[in-house]
């Protein structure tokens, strides 16, 4: 029989047994084995049984295992150490946390802006399957893509391709809505947005939620209207359970058409490019659109008239090709030869670069969103660089701790874990603070963007997922390098306090590279914002070729000449009103009637011109210069026209006076006008685009706007109020059935640059923050240098160095780093801003001044930051720094 105890049951036992018990019990097992053997029992077999009977709770090691318990203890210890460190180094922690918090707050807001933009129109069930039919025309300036359509297109598509669904939409935006009550009185609302006209198929293509009414019959014939919940509330003042009472109520449109409410839908999400709130049947648009002509014309285009298709199983590319058949079959020949229909996915609608307007406003191109994202990334990276600079600067202070930990047996990776835990803790605090800051910043930023963006941090969980991701990324990005630096320290020299100052200051240390990077970012941003500001003030101050000052505009309900004449006389009778003029629109306007013009000197491709109808006082009121011929008087015939200088050049006249007397044809309809005068060139479109050809015709229809010039003399608030009351009274006398609404013309023009204005405002904020974070990092770097050079400075002072000399030591390095950064930043900023400016037909030139200012600004910030810290070091008593040897 075997004398040796069996190995494997013991090995099994040692594996499962609680380590504190293993020795004692194993001894018992062996003793029993010996005893059993001596009694000639089957000792091995009995031992196996004993081992199995030992396999019970109380003996088996805990599932966690002792190693895990140990880690838990260490993490607890790391947290304690971190808390103590944060409490001890208050300035350092404050700088770290506030820098990170600012970065996180900005990143959160930018994230929400992007998140909001990316969620546009996703609520439609057929999102991936919806397309807008655009026109691509071959013109003199290459291919032109545009969205305006002819009314019969959708009908033609439906009949040619039964497998697809198509609908026309017309977004009139503004409209006068009347709610007649039981006594016959009418409550009127001048709506500034939301008035839409759609074909019934719209309801099948787009997704909306009906609260009341039947989706199938809601728009099956003209005379019906769908309201959103909030509009129904506004008009009928109903609580949610009484919404059904709104059904079949009459409402009037422009005092002309009475329709009945057929359904009420839920409000659209804010992320929609179809802000239709009062939705009429398509055919009812003849009440507001004089060019509707029953929707039969294949010649009438309007940018607000769009065509949408739902493709189903059809492949979009195949379908696009088949559309050429529609071009040939329906379009008039002169259009058909240059036209291709193009499908634009709904997913692209909000981000298009070529068609920048949607029903709701401007598109945000992927480039713009990328820039916003990049600014966010830059801010986070700057904050991380800061953190790295500050942490490595503090490394010397932690040296002893690291030394002791290493001596006690801490491994390098344990130390890395410790410092990463610390970073995570700091980041976590910063994240909470950042969330608070972002929450505070939410409202002001929405105001700046005039609610074009929506930053609701707590609308969904995305904010928190993003915050989690941010904490993780920052911890790794900012914490890893300092942790490794700390963990790498030689324990002996760390404890002995003889840590070499040369150790980490090679010619090209990572920290220097980071500072250069940070300087580069802040200089690019400073240069960028300076150029942006210069372009903005150029927009505001550029001579437009007319005077937009002190002009009040009113939108006229009709062209009745008696009304107009009486209104004009009433207004002019008042001393504070100097001039009144009626016309299609102001010299610069977003609404334009553009058509090709024909003249014997024009051959080849079409030349387009804008037509505005104006009265004789127009040029006087807007102070436009007549350079040849004459303007209009009240008896001028309808076909007299004044053109701008550019048009005379297009017609081939070098001297504008030669163009007087020429006859040109506007549009294909045969409208012929005779040039009687020429005005100096002026901006008919915003400064984004080049000069237009413009024809002013003396013509008594197409009069949409009254312009009223207020005397400039005494523009006090009271005077203005009084003048407005006079205008309102005169208006109500002529148009009692309309709502009085006025605008200031210069403010209207300012709206052309609203996007730039918002971008400039927001960028200014972020630039300030980026520069601030950069300054914090710089402070950290100087603090680091000061720590390392304490002894050197002490010796220098003993040897007779002045404060100035010592300040020099610190500044010299920074000046070099700043110069390197400038060399990188200047061309980069020039390139980026120059390509941005190229979007504008009228732009400033980038002069050297902005670069000088940028360098001076960052130099000033750098020197002040450095000065503060280095002066403290320079003035310290050298004895203090030298005696610890």
């Amino acid at each position, binding site marked *: 029989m075997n004398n040796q105890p069996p190995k494997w049951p013991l090995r099994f036992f040692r594996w499962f047994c609680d380590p504190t018990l293993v020795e004692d019990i194993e*001894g018992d097992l062996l003793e029993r084995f010996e005893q059993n053997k001596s009694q000639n029992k089957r000792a091995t077999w009995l031992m196996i049984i004993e081992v199995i009977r030992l396999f019970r709770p109380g003996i088996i090691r805990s599932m966690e295992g002792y190693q895990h318990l140990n880690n838990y203890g260490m993490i607890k210890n790391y947290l304690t150490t971190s808390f103590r460190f944060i409490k001890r180094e208050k300035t350092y922690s404050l700088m770290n946390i506030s820098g990170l918090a600012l970065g996180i707050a900005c990143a959160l807001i930018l994230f929400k802006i992007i998140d909001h933009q990316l969620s546009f129109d996703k609520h439609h069930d057929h999102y991936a399957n919806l397309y807008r039919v655009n026109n691509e025309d071959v013109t003199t300036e290459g291919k032109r893509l545009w969205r305006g359509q002819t009314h019969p297109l959708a009908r033609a598509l439906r009949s040619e391709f039964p497998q697809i669904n198509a609908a026309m939409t017309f977004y009139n935006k503004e409209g006068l809505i009347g709610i007649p009550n039981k006594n016959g009185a009418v409550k009127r609302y001048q709506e500034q947005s939301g008035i839409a006209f759609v074909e019934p198929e719209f309801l099948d293509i787009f997704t909306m939620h009906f609260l009341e009414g039947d989706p199938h019959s809601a728009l099956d014939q003209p005379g019906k209207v769908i309201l959103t919940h909030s509009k129904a509330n506004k008009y009928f003042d109903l609580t949610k359970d009484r919404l059904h009472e709104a059904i079949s109520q009459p409402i009037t449109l422009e005092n002309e058409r009475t329709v009945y409410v057929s359904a009420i839908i839920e409000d659209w999400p804010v992320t929609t490019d179809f802000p239709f709130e009062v939705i009429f049947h398509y055919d009812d648009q003849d009440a507001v659109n004089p060019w509707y002509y029953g929707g039969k014309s294949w010649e009438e285009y309007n940018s607000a008239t769009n065509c949408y298709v739902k493709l189903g199983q059809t492949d979009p590319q195949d379908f696009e090709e088949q559309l050429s058949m529609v071009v040939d079959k329906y379009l008039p020949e002169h259009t058909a030869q240059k036209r291709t229909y193009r499908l634009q996915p709904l997913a692209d609608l909000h981000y298009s670069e070529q068609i920048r307007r949607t029903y709701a406003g401007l598109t945000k191109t992927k480039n713009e969103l990328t820039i916003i994202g990049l600014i966010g990334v830059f801010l986070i990276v700057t904050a991380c660089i800061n953190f790295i600079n500050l942490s490595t600067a503090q490394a010397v202070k932690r040296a002893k701790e690291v030394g002791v930990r290493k001596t006690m047996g801490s491994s390098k990776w344990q130390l890395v874990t410790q410092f990463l835990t610390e970073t995570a803790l700091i980041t976590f605090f910063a994240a909470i603070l950042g969330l608070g800051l972002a929450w505070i910043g939410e409202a002001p930023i929405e105001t700046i963007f005039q609610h074009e963006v929506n930053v609701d941090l707590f609308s969904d969980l995305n904010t928190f997922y993003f915050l989690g991701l941010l904490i993780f990324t920052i911890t790794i990005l900012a914490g890893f390098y300092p942790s490794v630096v700390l963990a790498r320290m030689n324990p002996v020299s760390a404890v002995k306090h003889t840590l070499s100052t040369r150790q980490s200051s090679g010619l090209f240390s990572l920290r220097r590279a980071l500072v250069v990077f940070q300087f580069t970012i802040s200089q690019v941003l400073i240069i960028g914002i300076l150029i942006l500001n210069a372009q903005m003030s150029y927009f505001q101050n550029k001579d437009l070729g007319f005077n937009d000052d002190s002009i009040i505009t009113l939108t006229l309900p009709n062209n009745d000449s008696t009304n107009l004449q009486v209104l004009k006389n009433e207004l002019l009778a008042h001393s504070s009103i100097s001039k009144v003029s009626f016309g299609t629109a102001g010299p610069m306007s977003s609404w334009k009637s553009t058509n090709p013009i024909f003249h014997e000197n024009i051959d080849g491709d079409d030349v387009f011109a804008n037509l505005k109808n104006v009265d004789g006082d127009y040029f006087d009121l807007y102070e436009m210069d007549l350079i040849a011929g004459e303007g209009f008087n009240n008896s001028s015939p309808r076909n007299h026209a004044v053109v701008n200088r550019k048009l005379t050049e297009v017609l081939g006249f070098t001297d504008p006076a030669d163009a007087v007397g020429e006859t040109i044809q506007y549009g294909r309809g045969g409208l012929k006008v005779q040039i009687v005068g020429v005005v100096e060139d002026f901006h008919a479109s915003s400064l984004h685009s080049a000069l237009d050809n413009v024809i002013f015709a003396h013509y008594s229809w197409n009069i949409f706007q009254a312009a009223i010039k207020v005397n400039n003399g005494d523009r006090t608030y009271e005077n203005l109020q009084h003048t407005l009351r006079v205008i309102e009274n005169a208006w109500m006398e002529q148009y009692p059935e309309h709502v009085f609404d006025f605008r200031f013309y210069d403010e209207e023009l300012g709206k052309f640059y609203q996007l730039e204005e918002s971008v400039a405002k927001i960028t200014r904020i972020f630039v300030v923050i980026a520069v601030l974070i950069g300054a914090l990092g710089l402070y950290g770097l100087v603090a680091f240098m000061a720590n390392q050079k304490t002894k050197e400075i002490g010796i220098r002072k003993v040897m007779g160095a002045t404060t100035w000399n010592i300040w020099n030591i610190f500044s010299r390095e920074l000046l070099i780093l700043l110069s390197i950064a400038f060399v990188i930043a200047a061309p980069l900023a020039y390139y980026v801003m120059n390509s941005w400016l190229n979007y504008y037909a009228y732009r400033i030139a980038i002069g050297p001044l902005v670069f000088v200012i940028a360098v001076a600004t960052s130099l000033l910030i750098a020197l002040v930051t450095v000065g503060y810290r280095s002066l403290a070091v320079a003035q310290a008593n050298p004895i203090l720094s030298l005696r610890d040897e």
Partner: protein
Amino acid sequence: MGKHQLGEFEEVVMLTVAILHGDAYGFSIIAEIENRLNRSVSIGSVQTVLQRLEKKGYLESHLGEATAVRGGKRKRYFKVTNLGKSVLEETKDQRMSLWSAIPKVAWDE
């Protein structure tokens, strides 16, 4: 009463530890119980009870010197604590009071 309840086997183990006074370790306890009470006991059951009693504070232990017999493994010696002693006495008193409460006639039937 009620606060310190000993199970039967717990009581046996504690008493054996007391009997072995100074020489009570895992195997000796087992051998003693097997000898005196003539019942077979596994190492597992005894060790579990020992751990439990030590945790409750009735026993205390220390590791002794290594001996050749056990393959060089050290013994863990157990000793009854004062608390353990009072719990044992309390248990005994409870039993005695129960015994004395039995009426004489009960055994005659």
